[in-house]
């Protein structure tokens, strides 16, 4: 009941005309940027962050919720019509979505994605509404070693799961941790890795890294790889509505995608990649015509899209309740909180209840706005998709420098943006995953703080991390996760050699 009252109070905040206005602006801008090829939700949120700087925190976060949902929707549009998924979570959508578009069923693919996202987003937000307060209860019992172990587990999962080798993932992770350590040590005030550069004393902004790695890195990568060769866009033709058959085939995947997406999104497992893959393979296995998958099966769009949106809402639960980002977008959102001097976590529910519940309520509102604003405007978004590449990437570069420069009004940040963009290019060329860099950057300082806090309490005794049952268990799990793939590979190699001497 208490939760319900708090939520109603949140709706009171979210439905104020001014906040509704910001939510609508957020949804529209989020879709407009998110629809651009290769730009995922995390990049969109990072690029649009400066737009919210002049607002009250509550309004800013309501606008953020809109941007976030808009970007998800825009991203699926680009995946379906252009086959350019902006981030890992949209990859599965692109498979069958683009195949449907090639067959002239692009409108139905967009519709099942939009309605599935709406359904999954709403159900998952209900889940978030009730899970977050429970998680806060848990969070209040966690001690420094537990937090430390939880974050280590989160990084271990991301490193082990993404990319093709653990060494490459580790390199990306430690690069991120290193970027996060630049600046003054918050506990002793000692400068670390600043090389006498004054601008580095405050540390490197997450927004600069996110925009550099994703927007600039992607631009440089596409320039170096394909240049200006135009993408093939599939025009929408025929009926724009889903047939009875489409509905019949979509509703179960929506439901299953939601059930898969929400809990996995809330776990420290690196965001939407795993749930979307899981949803896709589940639908394929349950389908009576598995051979259709890859050639335009509507279930292959409906399920992963629902899973993607549900996991996005799921990721907000640990972010709000524990202050722990589990996906790239959540990491960027955390940066936004820090911009306002707010620290997500159990305390935020008490000190800033209006903001937290206003944000949660605006997730419901944003979802509805998205459906009513975007379905009729789909023609406009499709036109945005057909901007020629040279102008598109020229514009992305302008937005990237705008976002970076307006953070602090310091030209040095543009140099940093370029450097991190080059790092992003190199990582992409070598097929090194970039997500661990962002999570390392944002979790690094938090891990160090919890580690030092735990060791201060234990007076320098490192065994606290393993003698606490929870932290010990989590660390063991992390170790297993990191060691399993190479050990499996070793065993498989040995078995293969034994089979073929």
């Amino acid at each position, binding site marked *: 009941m208490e939760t319900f009252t708090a939520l109603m109070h949140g709706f009171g905040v979210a439905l104020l005309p001014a906040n509704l206005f910001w939510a609508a602006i957020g949804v529209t801008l989020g879709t407009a940027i998110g629809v651009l090829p290769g730009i995922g939700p995390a990049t969109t949120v990072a690029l649009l962050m400066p737009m919210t700087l002049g607002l009250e925190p509550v309004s800013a976060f309501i606008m953020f919720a809109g941007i976030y949902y808009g970007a998800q929707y825009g991203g699926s549009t680009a995946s379906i019509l252009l086959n350019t998924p902006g981030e890992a979570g949209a990859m599965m959508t692109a498979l069958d979505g683009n195949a449907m578009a090639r067959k002239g069923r692009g409108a139905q693919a967009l519709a099942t994605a939009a309605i599935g996202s709406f359904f999954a987003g709403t159900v998952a937000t209900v889940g978030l509404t009730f899970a977050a307060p429970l998680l806060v209860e848990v969070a209040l019992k966690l001690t420094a070693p537990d937090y430390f172990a939880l974050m280590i587990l989160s990084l271990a999962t991301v490193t082990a799961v993404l990319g093709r080798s653990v060494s490459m993932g*580790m390199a990306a992770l430690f690069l991120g941790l290193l970027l996060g*350590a630049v600046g003054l040590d918050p506990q002793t005030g000692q400068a670390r890795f600043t090389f006498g550069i004054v601008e580095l004393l405050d540390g490197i902004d997450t927004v600069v890294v996110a925009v550099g790695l994703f927007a600039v890195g992607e631009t440089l990568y596409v320039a170096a790889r394909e240049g200006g060769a135009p993408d093939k866009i599939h025009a929408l033709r025929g009926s724009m509505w889903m047939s009875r058959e489409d509905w019949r085939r979509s509703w179960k995947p929506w439901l299953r995608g939601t059930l898969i997406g929400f809990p996995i999104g809330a776990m420290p497992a690196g965001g939407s990649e795993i749930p979307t893959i899981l949803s896709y393979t589940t639908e394929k296995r349950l389908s009576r015509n598995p051979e259709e998958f890859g050639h335009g099966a509507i279930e292959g769009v409906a399920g992963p899209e629902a899973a993607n949106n549900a996991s996005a809402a799921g990721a907000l639960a640990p972010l709000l309740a524990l202050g722990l980002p589990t996906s790239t977008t959540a990491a960027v959102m955390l940066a936004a909180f820090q911009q306002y001097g707010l620290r997500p976590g159990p305390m935020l529910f008490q000190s800033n209840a209006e903001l937290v519940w206003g944000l949660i309520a605006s997730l419901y509102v944003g979802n509805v706005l998205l459906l009513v604003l975007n379905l009729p405007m789909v023609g406009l978004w499709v036109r945005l998709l057909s901007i020629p590449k040279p102008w598109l990437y020229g514009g992305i*570069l302008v937005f990237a420098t705008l976002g970076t420069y307006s953070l602090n009004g310091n*030209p040095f940040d*543009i140099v940093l943006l370029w450097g991190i963009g080059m790092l992003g290019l*190199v990582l992409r060329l070598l097929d090194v995953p970039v997500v661990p860099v962002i999570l390392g950057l944002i979790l690094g300082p938090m891990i160090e703080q919890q*580690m030092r806090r735990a060791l201060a309490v234990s007076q320098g005794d490192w065994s606290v991390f393993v003698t606490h049952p929870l932290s010990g268990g989590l660390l063991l799990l992390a170790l297993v996760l990191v060691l399993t793939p190479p050990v499996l590979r070793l065993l498989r190699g040995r078995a293969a050699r034994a089979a073929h001497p």
Partner: protein
Amino acid sequence: MSIKHPAEAAFGVAMLLLAIGVLVSAASIPSGFSYDAVGPRMFPTIMGVGLLLAALGILAGAIGPRRRAAPVAATPVEPRPDWRPVALISAALLLEAALIETLGWIPLTGVLFAAGAWAFGNRRLWLNLLIGLVFGGLILFAFDAGLGLDLPLGVLAPLFQPQG
């Protein structure tokens, strides 16, 4: 012994050098106070060791005998990256960083937009410069008027100063 993946080997060497740099740099951080059990040096040292392990892992994967009888032809050979557009975009970004405070947001946005478009094969330089200038102008007015953020006016500043 031969090198399987030259690019990966180069990345491994770079990571190795970075790891050594981090370890050396970490050792020179002054230690903290006695009540701080760990001090500001410990975490950077752990990172140095982590980078070192990653670098060794990458090198171990990149150096070694080429796979025997591997069907090399089956894997599509990726085209070599073209570094010219990368250099052009880099130059435009660094130029913006160097001159944004003197020349202002609008002209440098024009240059950046035109450079980006050129890098992607659109060679209509004057048209693109014009689009970039208008684009930059629109952003500047939207930001300064609507959102209360300041972008530098630079050389255009005198136009907006009240007379006298």
